[in-house]
């Protein structure tokens, strides 16, 4: 959260996207997070992804819980509605908002404290309900706002800034998301914008529960030797299974990579995900394979990043509930109220 609004003027020659919006139209207020915070890099990636997809900023609803990560929606898409709810409860608020108006794009931003501890249940249930959303966890393994306590994603054996060793096992949110049936699961690194931006863009285009765990080092409390969420550690242990390009329908698919290294995944909305494979054996359609792959690499101390699983034919909660196409928040009495004649019949049946 910030007191400081960004100046609205900008260079007239700024590049515009298909809607005529410039990059600046996707920005929000000035961040008050620590200089160098990984979360600010994620903010920049969200801005970039929305710009590239030519999304109307006001058609996005950005919802968060409480914590450093949950402040970030204030720093992007300044013309969209934001909701900084309560600690760990972003998923339920987002689910309700989505039920009310299926036409908006829902961006849920959370943290590891938010989603892996108090909100672990809500995280799980929003995923299993297949809410059409992009759920991003800005994962730094530490409680920044309360100054340095371990979070539930901190690896066992990793050290805090004060030198304390974490003796609890870590929760891997990606593994959980895979198990719960998320139809788009990815992990990335805030310091790898070239990987993260297309992942966010693809997640937004995906219909269903998209989950991205972004390792995002906390510059103040978790960027030291002994941490497994520091910039240096992640750079050294990052193993990317693929790189992604998102090709929306209007663009010709121009893949300039060597045959055999690209896999194109077509989604329901016509967008195509071009996966540049780095790992020849990796199949992003195999949920079980993804789970095994993840665990094997975790055992080796490697952080697997990239698009780990996608189901291009996914359904969302509204399809499960068979709700009308019109947003529920637009329906009025003439549609919703059965009327007095029906009530008279109901009365008659109760005598």
């Amino acid at each position: 959260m910030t007191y400081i609004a960004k100046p609205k003027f900008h260079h007239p020659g700024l590049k515009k996207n298909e809607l005529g919006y410039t990059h600046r139209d996707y920005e929000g207020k000035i961040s008050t997070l620590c200089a160098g915070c990984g979360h600010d890099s994620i903010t920049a990636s969200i801005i970039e992804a929305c710009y590239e997809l030519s999304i109307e900023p006001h058609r996005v609803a950005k919802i968060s819980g409480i914590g450093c990560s949950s402040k970030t929606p204030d720093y992007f898409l300044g013309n969209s509605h934001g909701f900084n709810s309560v600690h760990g409860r972003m998923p339920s608020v987002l689910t309700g908002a989505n039920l009310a108006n299926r036409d908006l794009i829902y961006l849920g931003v959370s943290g590891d404290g938010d989603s892996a501890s108090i909100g672990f249940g809500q995280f799980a249930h929003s995923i299993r309900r297949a809410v059409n959303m992009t759920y991003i966890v800005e994962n730094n393994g530490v409680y920044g706002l309360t100054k340095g306590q371990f979070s539930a994603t901190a690896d066992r054996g990793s050290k805090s800034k004060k030198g304390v060793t974490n003796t609890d096992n870590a929760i891997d949110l990606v593994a959980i998301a895979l198990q719960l049936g998320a139809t788009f699961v990815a992990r990335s690194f805030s310091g790898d914008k070239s990987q993260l931006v297309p992942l966010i863009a693809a997640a937004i285009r995906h219909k269903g529960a998209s989950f991205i765990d972004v390792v995002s080092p906390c510059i103040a409390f978790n960027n030291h030797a002994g941490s497994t969420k520091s910039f240096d550690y992640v750079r050294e242990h990052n193993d990317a299974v693929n790189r992604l390009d998102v090709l929306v329908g209007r663009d010709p698919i121009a893949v300039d990579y060597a045959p055999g290294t690209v896999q194109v995944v077509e989604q329901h909305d016509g967008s195509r995900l071009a996966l540049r494979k780095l790992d020849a054996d990796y199949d992003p359609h195999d949920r079980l394979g993804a789970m095994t792959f993840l665990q094997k690499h975790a055992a080796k101390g490697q952080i697997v990043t990239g698009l780990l699983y996608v189901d291009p034919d996914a359904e969302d909660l509204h399809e499960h509930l068979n709700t009308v196409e019109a947003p529920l928040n637009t329906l009025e009495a003439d549609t919703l109220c059965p009327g007095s004649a029906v009530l008279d019949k109901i009365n008659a049946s109760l005598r």
Partner: protein
Amino acid sequence: MSDKKPISSVNDFVVRFANVNGSGSASANEMFARSILRHGVPVSPRNIFPSNIQGLPTWYEVRVTEDGHLGARGGVDLMVAMNPQTWDKDVAGIEPGGYLFYDSTKPMPSTKFRDDITVIGVPLTAITNSTYTDPRQRQLFKNIIYLGSLSALLDMDPKLIEQLIGEQYKGKEKLLSSNVHALHLGRDWALQNLKCPIGLRVKKSDKVGDRIFIEGNSAAALGAVYGGATVCAWYPITPSSSVAEAFTAHCKKYRHDPATGKANYAIVQGEDELASIGMVIGAGWNGARAFTATSGPGISLMTEFIGLSYFAEIPAVIMNIQRAGPSTGMPTRTQQCDIIACAYASHGDTKHVLLFPEDPAEAFEFAAASFDLAERLQTTIFLMLDLDIGMNHRLSRPLKWDDARQYDRGKVMTAEMLEEGRDFGRYLDVDGDGIPYRTYPGTHPTKGSYFTRGTSRDRYARYSEEGPVYADNMQRLVRKFETAQDLVPRPLQANAERPTKYGVIYFGSTSPAMDEAIGLLEARGHQLDRLRIRAFPFHSSVASFLAEHDFVYVVEQNRDGQLRQLIVNENGIDPVRLVPILHYDGSPITARFIAKAIGDHQDHLKVTPLRKAVS
């Protein structure tokens, strides 16, 4: 033999069925109540059931009441004792001169009976076993057989019961005929072997009129349908679950798009109460009419979100079907014990709107109105039912709806209004009523967006921890609450026949017992003016009523006099002038209880001068 004259009464008595939970007796017992209604005689039935699926004792009480008293009366005139576990307690609960109906297949020692009651034995098990071989059939039809015997003993018209069975098993001829057969097995045995009728009789009348027979939870759910609720998120908890279940059933019947067959609603069973209210708040923030139904423990879990709804000003409706607390308390017993918990739910300075319906008709009306209020006031509205209204069938005025009625969506600034250049400050008090305008997400490309948060902010929704800014916002919320006084249902006053300096305040499910108690008090020579409170915040007429009376009794179903506390707190009245009349054993309050408690106090007031003279 009986040394007390048997009770003789036509259309005015209490029958209680003592059964074992899970024995399938509920439908037969309810059919008994409905069949009396078909005689044109009002009934007031109540389920008294354990927090258990099978095996524990359960009771179903039917008050037959030609005078139309819908509160519990207390006492039992005819006990249908079908549960050996509770035999002694059941027999002890019969009024002197009353009747005991039991299964006489196995002989009972004389010590198990009383001299001052009439014992009626029917060999139910023997009759059942000689007719049916299937164990489940034996269990179920035994209930219909005792219903048949009772019809003979109480002089009921069997055709009316057959008609009810016909309606229940319409299209299922085999079940219909077998149930009618069982009914006549019991009826014929009684006619041939017992003196029929006994002193208690059901005589055809015309006192039911056009009233309907419905549970409060079902009526509230219908109110949500008519009130335009499109999102329901809930988590099962007794005694509220049937609200969501009824809402689901009503929606499936009445809420589909005729062209596509798709649903005009979304119902989600949340993973817990926190998620349920979270979804309601998310939906309310996004412009849908949303509600949840819960009970006391659920309210406890929801309080953080309720505070957010209050401070961030998001419409939400919570139907609280109260049960006995604290903690798990008595989950299947009734109380009015969440008044304070709801009125001031959450940390910090909060106040919430409460609605107190007295019966199913008001449950329907208030439920529908709660969505208008939630959107008009942009806050949480609590519909305060309790188990006694919610889970029992009540005779009720027919439900009514005005087709000209449109939903009040409150102050919503549209894209057109923003285009006109209207100043949009999310927390700006434009009209002086404390209610700001809001915009729905997605309204306009460049205007009207704002950030919703539970932290302090200024009138334009900009984060601010400045003291005066915070205080300004909190004062506006007080203004909004004052505005609510004139929007919520007003109290209803009924004055005594003669001028009196004594009054009584009551609310919710106490209403029918209170109405009856007034008659009993008048018979003892006590005159009281009545005020039925229907909502919090209190309308100014509550303060006027307090000012006009020396003593005001506050009748409620909790230990600590929670409504009384709220009245004292909000009106600054001397607590001594508010006399608590409290009933909190989990059973519905009765007219006898109220009349005795108030009557004894009134008698005490009358003798005060004598005591002074003695001293």
